[in-house]
């Protein structure tokens, strides 16, 4: 499998990165920054989990072309997959690009569909497709603008600290994703009171590392934010945007990008541009899209990340 970073990774991590491509059924146990792969059925942490949540991303309601002319149907199927889980997730987080074009009816469709999800709460954060033309007004009106009205927020759940960041606003010509100084100041203050042994989970739409800047897959000021997170024993960063599973371990920080519920995009640097991967083998779309299940075991820093494709 194609991975332009394999050459600089130690053997074990190289193997793990490859496993991340294998699709549904791979269980990720993340402890102290080192990931351990196992099969879903033998995953002790999954069985002992105090709680679990599901990440959904990049639904792109309003997209209407190959390889998925009906992203409403595939989002509905993704929700059905969540509802079929043996254990109900405490919450769902949608990590952005709910809509394709920031249209009110596209947001309303997502909100309606997610009412069918069997979960306690749905958290949302915007992708760049959700803030077109109005700087996110239509999005924030429906899904909340966080404590300060700028979209970012935090919450605590069973001893895990969650931070939702917005890196899709005020993007600059020639730049990448952008957090900005106001958000950085908020994050600094937010994390200051948290003990280093508290597991931290960060949500953002765009990747928080330089995954492939030529395609805009990165956040220009993410290093600043990550500097605030390095003192923690376990940090898990979950994002969307690139419509495929990629993983990176950097000290105690583990990054995971998620699949889309609508359509896949090419692996970094393969093909002329990002955008929908159009020429999928017939009937195989569902192998490339889906949702992510995350479980946490009480008293540990372990977060188990499981990918579930629709196929």
């Amino acid at each position, binding site marked *: 499998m194609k991975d332009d970073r394999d050459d600089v990774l130690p053997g074990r991590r190289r193997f793990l990165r490859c496993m991340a491509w294998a699709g549904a059924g791979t269980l990720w146990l993340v402890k102290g920054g080192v990931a351990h792969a196992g099969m879903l059925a033998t995953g002790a942490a999954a069985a002992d989990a105090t709680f679990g949540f599901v990440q959904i991303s990049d639904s792109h309601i309003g997209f209407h072309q190959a390889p998925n002319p009906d992203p409403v149907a595939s989002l509905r199927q993704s929700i059905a997959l969540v509802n079929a889980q043996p254990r109900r997730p405490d919450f769902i987080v949608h990590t952005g690009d709910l809509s394709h074009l920031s249209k009110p009816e596209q947001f309303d469709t997502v909100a309606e569909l997610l009412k069918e999800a069997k979960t306690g709460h749905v958290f949302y954060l915007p992708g760049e497709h959700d803030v077109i033309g109005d700087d996110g007004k239509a999005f924030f009106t429906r899904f909340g603008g966080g404590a300060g009205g700028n979209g970012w927020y935090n919450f605590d759940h069973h001893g895990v600290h969650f931070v939702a960041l917005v890196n899709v606003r005020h993007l600059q010509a020639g730049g990448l994703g952008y957090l900005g100084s106001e958000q950085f100041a908020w994050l600094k203050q937010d994390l200051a009171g948290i003990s280093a042994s508290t597991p931290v989970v960060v949500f953002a739409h765009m990747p928080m590392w330089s995954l492939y800047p030529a395609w*805009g897959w990165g956040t220009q000021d993410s290093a600043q934010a990550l500097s605030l997170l390095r003192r923690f024993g376990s940090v898990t960063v979950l994002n969307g945007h690139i419509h495929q599973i990629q993983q990176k371990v950097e000290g105690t920080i583990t990054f995971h990008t998620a699949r889309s519920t609508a359509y896949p995009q090419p692996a970094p640097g393969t093909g002329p541009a990002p955008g929908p991967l159009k020429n999928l083998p017939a009937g195989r779309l569902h192998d490339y899209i889906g949702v992510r299940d995350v479980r946490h075991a009480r008293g540990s820093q372990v977060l188990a990340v499981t990918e579930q494709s629709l196929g």
Partner: protein
Amino acid sequence: MRWNSILLAGPFALALAAHAATPAASTKAAPGYQVGIRNFHFMPAKLVVPAGGTVTWINHDEEPHVVTSVGDRFKNSPALDTNDHYSATFAQPGTYTYFCSIHPQMVGTIVVR
């Protein structure tokens, strides 16, 4: 196909004539200049036009793009879906840099002489 236009010109005036809902069709053959958007690039990335020239962007990608003026020097486009067009007329000489507000790595320049 959806039209987003300030002023239409050249070959598009013809297509517009068939589009009854749009009232402002100009039959005057103003010089038209095009920038194609393909594979997340503005092509050409740098376009030179005379003062008063009208530039029309056409999105050929499956992804939407947004023509956004750096420093608000001309009106930004709405989201351009596949095959959407957007036009702007440049009266004053100068160098106008623009980018895609949702894919900021996409940058282009209109030089008005």
